[in-house]
């Protein structure tokens, strides 16, 4: 059994959906042109992951192994459709911006992946925490990539925040450079690939530094035991 701490660490860092499993690339690369888009899709995906994980965990003892995949697919498709309809009803502006990528959450492999690999074998509490951590990990990658591309591509941050937070948020936009002509590459798909590549490289560098630092420590420990 994985400890709660490890579930959280896996989701946020060591088994991150975007940076390590590299799943759900289609929405990840397509909508992260701005911070708000990333946040919107991240929240929708996270809600889906938490809900499907909990449902799958609840029914894990009822589902016979030979029909489990179709049942998971049914659960995921229903949940995503409900989320899509609700967004269209209550967050219409954002729904229009994210468009096709909301229903496409169904095809995000990380969701059925977590259902099959984790939720179907663990208690509801653990499945919930796993969905939450994995979703949050994905959301953080989306938001980071969205911010980077928005700052480099348009010279702004939090533009179009009113789509999510209402009219009062129109003033939230931070403009870094006035009369910025924009850097097209960052907004276009190639920029998304490069940005994700840089984020993965950054994560790997941090991991390697950490590993290096902890090796001498481990050696010392062995020495002290000897």
């Amino acid at each position, binding site marked *: 059994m994985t400890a709660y701490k490890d579930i959280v660490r896996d989701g946020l860092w060591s088994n991150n959906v975007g940076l390590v499993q590299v799943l759900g690339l289609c929405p990840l690369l397509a909508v992260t042109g701005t911070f708000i888009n990333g946040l919107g899709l991240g929240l929708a995906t996270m809600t889906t992951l938490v809900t499907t994980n909990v449902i799958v965990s609840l029914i894990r003892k009822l*589902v016979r192994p030979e029909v489990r995949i*179709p*049942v998971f697919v049914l659960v995921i498709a*229903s949940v995503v459709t409900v989320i899509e*309809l609700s967004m269209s009803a209550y967050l219409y502006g954002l729904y229009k911006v994210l468009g096709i990528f909301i229903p496409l959450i169904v095809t995000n492999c990380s969701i059925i992946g977590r259902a099959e690999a984790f939720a179907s074998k663990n208690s509801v509490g653990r499945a919930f925490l796993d969905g939450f951590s994995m979703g949050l990990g994905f959301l953080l990658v989306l938001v980071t990539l969205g911010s980077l591309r928005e700052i480099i*591509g348009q010279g702004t941050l939090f533009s179009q925040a009113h789509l999510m937070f209402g009219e009062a948020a129109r003033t939230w936009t931070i403009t870094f450079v006035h009369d910025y002509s*924009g850097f097209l590459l960052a*907004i276009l798909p190639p920029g998304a690939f490069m940005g994700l590549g840089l984020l993965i490289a950054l994560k790997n560098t941090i991991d390697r530094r950490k590993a290096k630092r902890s090796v001498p420590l481990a050696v010392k420990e062995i020495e002290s035991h000897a």
Partner: protein
Amino acid sequence: MTYRPVLISAVFLFLFAVIGSGLVAFTHNSTAERIAENQRRALLKSLNELVPASDYDNDIYSDILYVNNSELLGTDEAVPVYRARKGGWPVAAVLTPIAPDGYNGEIRLLVAIKLDGTLAGVRVLQQRETPGLGDNIEAERSDWILGFNGKSLNDPRQEQWKVKRDGGVFDQFTGATITPRAVVKAVKNTLLYYKQYGHNLFEQHPQPTNKS
């Protein structure tokens, strides 16, 4: 071999299909009205940017006529025309033509023409132009589209309804000529359509059910 486990699985799967569809149907039922209202409000908002709500008193959203002209409106489909009236008198017609030759496919426009044939304004409904270049046709991104306000087929003269690079009067964008060229052409064609058929647009009864 026994059929029992297969049967149980099948029944279970069936149950889940029913529960899943039920959940979706229930959500659809409880949100449909709100979603339709959102769409209505979004379109009304765009319409009111072009034709101020104080200028008309009819239910513009329902006063729809569907017209078909592949040559001037850019599509084989019938496109809606919203009609603004005040005290029963025609005020403006808002057409929804398509510029078929954008840089990245179709650009759907909202073109409001006052009764006398001058433009009340133009807005983009849907486009897939290059972000940062072609999408400057959006009112949120630049003022370019506002340049159509008050223009008509006499001002500028017809042969000058082009972007500057082609010898006309409308600005192109640095690095993007195709998009503005497509929009200017579509707006001009819409004005030509209005000149030819405009007198007819207000006479016919609304056809709110014809969605084809």
